[in-house]
């Protein structure tokens, strides 16, 4: 049988988002634990001490409802916590308090833009639960390690678990979905969305279907995907591996596999994960969550403008292309930056061009968001105005911006200090042109003999002498004049 490429890929995602509440899900401990010494951000409740009881964090419920509404879910007026029972050293109580039978919200969707147009990815459910602690193994696995250490600082951090329907048809779509989801969670300030640091986590279920026979591969759960890039890589790897099932590869069985970013492959976690019966039952220590319609309406009213709405508004209000708008709204901070600039400088397309090229390049190189840099909208606006005034050329402006990112100085200061002011004085430029022409009689002759390309040489020379500060338009014009003026 030949290797085919027309198998249908079916992907569903299970996402865990750490909520940005002040305190943990069921106790008063802080949620900012990453810089603490191990087991210092803990109390009897999150350590699972005898007799300790959970108290539900109201802010976590608010954040859960907010996320649910942003994902177009139906928020359930009645939901309930259940206990998910299993033993593991990072789980202090021997059970995780989660929502199983009656989740906080259900039946949502998120539209994503795929290369084949827009599509809706359905959200099956969103529920609240508590995070586990962290294990630090003396070697890489708990069963081979001589010892393992338990740190419970993270135990009890509130999580929203978001489960999609298996609606994504390619690894690319899965990545697009994750990026969009992250963006939305950041827009509404409920999660900082950092995959690398684990504040947003993604597990994926993938299987392949033969469209001719309807036969399906076993479903694989892929874990440990800790970057957007890896969402795509891990699932691509897995899709390729799953194709072998149709060739009769007996190794393709239903299992959980972990993505190894060093080896760039998924590795079976079989044996480690026995088929678990979690013995869910209603958490007797916490009364059910009963919400009022007004509460949900109130939170609906708090929702900020979400990326899709913002994109549409940008296109209309600033008359910029869809492509620009979708890039600008891909981060809340960037979108705000754009609008701040436009408020002070009324050429939105020029602002957008600068953001999409120069600003984004700087951000990417530094791996930060715009609000984490030394640049404000004032910097960019001043820069653009100086270009308009002719004080500096666009080229110079790029290096000025670079410098501003570095030091936070205002563009004017930089131009002043480094003497970058553009030379727009015709007499001054003419003198230099004259000099260059006189010093290169051979090239002049070539030009006049019909080799018009030689003009570039002169422009380059003038720029070299002026260290790029000469007004390029004027240089162009004056060089032409000089070369074409009749011989004396």
């Amino acid at each position, binding site marked *: 049988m030949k290797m085919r490429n027309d198998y249908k890929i079916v992907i569903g995602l299970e996402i865990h988002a750490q909520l940005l509440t002040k305190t943990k899900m069921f106790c008063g401990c802080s949620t900012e634990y990453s810089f603490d010494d191990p087991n210092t951000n803990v109390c009897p409740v999150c350590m699972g001490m005898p*007799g300790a009881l959970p108290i539900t964090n109201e802010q976590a419920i608010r954040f859960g409802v907010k996320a649910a509404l942003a994902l177009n879910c139906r928020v359930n007026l009645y939901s309930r916590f259940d206990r998910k029972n299993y*033993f593991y050293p990072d789980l202090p109580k*021997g059970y995780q308090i989660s929502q199983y039978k009656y989740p906080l919200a259900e039946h949502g969707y998120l539209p994503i833009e795929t290369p084949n147009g827009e599509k809706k990815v359905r959200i099956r459910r969103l529920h609240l639960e508590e995070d586990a602690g962290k294990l630090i193994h003396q070697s890489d696995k708990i069963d081979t390690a001589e010892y393992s250490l338990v740190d419970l600082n993270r135990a009890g951090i509130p999580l929203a678990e978001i489960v999609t329907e298996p609606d994504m048809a390619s690894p690319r779509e899965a990545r697009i979905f994750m990026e969009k989801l992250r963006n939305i969670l950041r827009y509404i300030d409920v999660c900082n969305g950092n995959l690398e640091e684990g504040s947003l986590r993604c597990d994926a279920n993938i299987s392949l279907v033969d469209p001719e026979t309807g036969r399906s591969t076993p479903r694989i759960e892929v874990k440990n995907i800790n970057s957007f890039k890896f969402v795509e890589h891990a699932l691509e790897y897995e899709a390729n591996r799953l194709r072998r099932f149709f060739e009769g590869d007996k190794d393709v069985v239903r299992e959980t596999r972990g993505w190894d970013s060093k080896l760039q492959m998924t590795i079976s976690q079989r044996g480690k994960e026995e088929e678990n*019966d979690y013995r869910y039952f209603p958490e007797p220590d916490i009364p059910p969550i009963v919400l009022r319609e007004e509460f949900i309406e109130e939170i609906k009213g708090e929702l900020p403008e979400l990326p899709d709405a913002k994109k549409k508004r940008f296109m209309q209000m600033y008359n910029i292309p869809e492509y620009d708008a979708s890039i600008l709204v891909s981060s809340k901070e960037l979108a705000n930056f754009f609008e701040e600039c436009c408020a002070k400088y009324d050429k939105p397309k020029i602002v957008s061009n600068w953001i999409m090229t120069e600003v984004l390049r700087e951000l990417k190189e530094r791996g930060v968001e715009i609000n984490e840099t030394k640049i404000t909208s004032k910097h960019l606006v001043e820069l653009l105005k100086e270009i308009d005034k002719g004080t500096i050329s666009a080229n110079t402006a790029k290096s000025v911006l670079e410098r501003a990112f570095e030091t936070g100085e205002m563009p004017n200061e930089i131009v002043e200090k480094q003497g970058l002011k553009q030379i727009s004085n015709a007499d001054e430029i003419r003198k230099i042109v004259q000099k260059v022409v006189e010093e290169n009689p051979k090239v002049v002759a070539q030009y006049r003999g019909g080799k018009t390309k030689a003009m570039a040489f002169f422009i380059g020379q003038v720029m070299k002498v002026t260290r790029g500060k000469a007004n390029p338009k004027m240089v162009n014009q004056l060089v032409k004049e000089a070369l074409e003026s009749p011989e004396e």
Partner: protein
Amino acid sequence: MKIYEMTYSEIETSKDIRPDEVLDAFYNRITDVEDKVKAFISIYERRENPKTKPKIIAVKDNILVEGKKTTCASKILESFIAPYDATVVGKLKENGFYIVGKTNMDEFAMGSSTENSAFFPTHNPWSISRVPGGSSGGSAAAVAAGEVPLALGSDTGGSIRQPAAFCGVVGFKPTYGLISRYGLVAFGSSLDQIGGFARSVEDVAKLSNIIAGKEDLDSTSLNNSVEDFTRLLKRPIKGLKIAIPREFMSNALDKGIKDQIEKTIYKVEDEGAVVEEVSMKMMDYATAIYYIIAPAEASSNLSRYDGVRYGLSKSDPSLKHQYMKTRDAGFGPEVKRRIMIGTFTLSAGYYEAYFEKAQRARTKLIKEFNDVFSKYDYIVGPTTPTVAFKIGEKVENPLQMYLQDIYTIPANLAGIPAISVPIGIVDGLPVGLQIMGKRFKDAEVLNLAYAVEQMVNFDYTGGMKKLDEGLGDEDEK
């Protein structure tokens, strides 16, 4: 009258007793009788002389007292030092109570005789060859023996009321949610309730005033707190309507106890209360419901004892074996049995047939209570089917032991207040009357209990006397 024979209220109101005399009286009493009774797991060293009269109390060893051992009578917590005070303990301390020690119990409150303590059994002061009941057997025995005037216990299926009946003291389980469970080591979370033991209804009402109240650390703690538990104590009972469930007076009930109950009911009628027999069919299912729900919750609540963070830990290179070794060595047979039952009834494939069905039956039972309470103020009957049995008599037969709680379990399932008051003696041993009331009608329950106490005039010092005269050993002959 000796100081240790006095009730908490008598000591408080008596003007000619010095604070150090109170402390001496109880510490000396403990020294004198503790060898025979074995009510305590820990006895705290006598602190220097108090300025005010100490309010002496003992606390069951499943309630946390900061900096002190809290063992739950289990090897798995044998050396566990509580890192915080239970809410009730905090309230006791704020109100100047003097905790003398922690009392013995069935391991993790699972049992009806205190024989399931991993350390030693406690003896009934009325007859030291007999059990004090359980699981709060240590608390009940300590109060009956005059070692303390007051004690705290916990009641999941009768663990306060049954030992109170066996030891001839008052034991009160308030409405579920009126007293914070924070710091009570969980057994069956939807059933567990802290309550008090005393040698008078008035004392138990006063103690409830101290420990009750809505509290933010327990989400199941309720706002509708009774303003004052003592407020209706002396209200006449004329016209109050009392139901006696036929199911409580059936063949399972010891003849002698039945006679005592009936005698008391006649007296209550004489005072003008209206007593009628009713049928409560769901009562026959209460024990079955309980032995599904309580072990299910327990199997989960006890998962935290894994040897990782505190308590007994048996290390093994394999994580799974570390868990198995630790829990095998740490838990006694009854605890293991209930963990297994609970794990089974929650398992996939059995959940619907057991746990879910039991939950539905529990709802039905609550409805039956509501129906009866729509016509009556109280439901009254025996606390226990028998008087205190011999140590060792039922240990081999867990089902027999489980039947000890047939009359007390329903109140836990329904979350209603219930009290056991001693009403007489059968074969030299005390008999308890159980009074149940509507949710949050705790003061009403104490009202009827107080009235009964006045009618029967029970001698609360009977156990102390038998203990002192060595009469408790008589059935050894």
